[in-house]
């Protein structure tokens, strides 16, 4: 049994301790916005926030999260998340959309840390999040647009 906070709620996860957070979120809590892409922290589709940092839930065992505060795409909020979502929709960033939960969490985290990121900052922060549809041109532009929204 692992006690932690997920999306603001206290949760006791009754799963084997080595269960990756990804599967506990999906199978046990039905929080399906967090996606399975590779299972080995290579694609970023499973990205969630743990104590304010983006984490690959597919390789994070639940037993390491005792007392942690987890936020998934379903509950991601705040000015950065709002700005990112607005910029994403305005530019129609998603194609298939499967990787976008992870992209949005990574982008919102970047803007929290660096409110006006350069292209190099974006490369560094986002290179771990693969998009097979290659929506990268729009992801980059949307992050810059979100930064402008936040600045205003």
């Amino acid at each position, binding site marked *: 049994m692992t006690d932690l906070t997920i999306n603001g709620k206290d949760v006791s996860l009754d799963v084997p301790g080595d269960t990756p957070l990804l*599967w506990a979120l999906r199978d046990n809590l039905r929080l399906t916005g967090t996606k399975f892409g590779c299972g080995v922290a290579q*694609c970023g589709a499973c990205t969630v926030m743990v104590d304010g940092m983006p984490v690959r839930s597919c390789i994070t065992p639940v037993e390491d999260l005792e007392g942690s505060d987890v936020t998934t795409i379903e509950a991601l909020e705040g000015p950065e998340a709002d700005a990112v979502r607005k910029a994403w929709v305005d530019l129609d960033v998603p*194609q298939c959309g499967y990787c976008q939960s992870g992209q949005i969490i990574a982008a919102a985290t970047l803007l929290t840390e660096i409110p006006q990121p350069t292209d190099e900052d974006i490369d560094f922060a986002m290179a771990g999040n693969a998009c*097979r*549809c*290659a929506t990268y041109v729009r992801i980059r532009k949307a992050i810059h647009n979100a930064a402008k929204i936040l600045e205003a």
Partner: protein
Amino acid sequence: MTAFSPTRRGFLAGGAALIIGAHLPVGNKMAAKAATGPVDLNAFVRIGEDNTVTVIVKHIEFGQGPFTGFATLVAEELDADWSQMRAEHAPADTATYQNFAFGIQGTGASTAVRNAFTQMRQAGAAARAMLVDAAAREWGVSADEITVANGVISHTGSGKTAQFGELVATASESTPPAEPKLKDPAKFKLIGKEEIRRLDSAIKTTGEAQFTLDVYRDDMLTVVVAHSPWINGKVASVDSSAALAVDGVEKVEQIPTGVAVYARNTYSALKGRDALLIDWDLSEAETRSADEQLEEVAAAARDGDGVVAETYGDLNAAFENAAQVIEAEYRLPFLAHAPLEALDGVIETRGDAAEIWMGSQMQTVDQMVTSDILGIPLENVAINTLLGGGSFGRRAQYDGQFAQELAQVAKAGGEGIYKLVWTRSDDIQGGYYRPLAVHRHRAALDETGRIIGWDNKFATESIMGGSAFEAVIQNGVDPFSIEGSIHKPYDFGAFEARWVRTDSKVPHLWWRSVGHSHTAFANEVFLDEVLQRQGKDPVQGRLELLGDKSPRDRRVLERVAEMANWQGVQGANGKAYGVALHPSYDAHFAYIAEVSEVEGEPRVHKVWVAADVGIAVNPDVVKAQIEGGLGYGLSAALFNEITFAEDGRIEQENFDTYRLLRINEMPEVEIDLAVNTEKPGGIGEAGTPPIAPAVSNAWRILKGEPVRRLPLVRV
């Protein structure tokens, strides 16, 4: 658009009649109903009392935009307001929802808008006529005096207005017009408008979008299958005792494609699969290395006779009279599609019925194979098509490969509900690759360096051979294997393209742009080499060859040179510029790629794109598909290759060895989209073929040696 229809051979017996014809099915108009709930005015348009208009889309949405495109076509003719438009997937129903290019229900070959452009407009126009008729009857006025704009129906004389929802119950009793009148394209308000936004963006930023993996039911078992790491390996023996001891594992069953582990959750299923001890029978497996397989294809290209795909002029004379002959060979690898959502599906069986939830790209095929394997009537197989997390060809299988495995899982599991999940290794090692291809090119030049003859002999597998679509193979030529090698925009004087069909144990599949994925590379790289050796500029040299044979190709090439401020292949900044021109899917594309060398690898900084796709229903979706198609092709050109070890084991397993293009490797993309009224071209694939040759042509300049093989970065 290649019109083709399947034969039943290869599909399995039993099933639906395939009806082909560009009629608009309105026969299933719902009977007059009480004024509650939404109303289907025809098979494609449902209007709710809340004024929402839902378009029933016969093609799967996996990012390429049919939800938005079809909603645009319907809204245009319906004179709806864009804000009231919605879209959802059609059920599996071949007679009503067939792709006119295929004769079955399915998505592929960039046919969505091309096959349904008129059909969807007719569906919108028919629904509009029914609403107008309803208003005329309710208001007691002439239908001719009624106007519709932005979702509001008006009668000026009486001052009456209504929204769609108020009239839909009455409209459901109207007779749909036999020949719905379509708008003059000059009056389009939505088609061709850049500002139309996608219908599915918002739900893809919140986690709400429902993919197959997201289907959960309380009584569902999750299933993973241990597949052979060799192509065509079979289970010789399995010891499942350790797997069965894993907490959560319910049972283990051998199925034709491997060993299925059924568990109460995904992690238990994965742990159970890891605990299986399987001996593989390799007697029928592909146990040769990648090099051996490639040499076999290269030998076929060199020694095989093949069949003529296209020929014109006197090729023998051209080569006999040539002052110089240039030749080269090009090799292309196996490619996996690697959609980010690997294949998955949910099936529920009860008695003689089955219901499936999956990103089905060929509903008719998936329905047929399920019916056959489970021994239940075809009409009892319901398919709920869900959003696909990418496909690039992978979700469409001519043999219903995945649906077959899903049905086998259900059959072995007994009545119940099962979610079959493929992991990345199942995907990368699962075969169904873009097949190997080896091209040999020869050019005959006269004493002035002018090309007077061109000969292209190449070897690759038949894409459609052995499938239900085999009838498309005419005179031994599979149009999907040779596309892009024929009907070239250039006039070579004398020309021949000859295809040598190879066979392989490795199952092949259409991969985004199919034949064009190898022909465009070999053609445009060889042409560029020839032009360089003659001291010709790659833009000017191509323009000379185009002559006036292909005005749309000429225009995009001239335009892209303008956009890039073309100054030749060498930049002053250590960068090189590569050109490629390749039409496909009734769309015309010219690329210029700006490339430098960074840490030994090509780095593509910018790509200029001039495109002519005819009428672009949603120009911004078209641009997104160009950006994405280019990035997808660039990933393959730079990094992607499936290889086989000395013992035939597949060497790649995940994204650490099958490297995907990342944001820091994605070039800036500047697109100019021609505006015209030519018929709509396909846009899901056409952006992919030109990027590999454009980048390769720049890389040759940078490295000073020819590029004869992909990927450019080989491990």
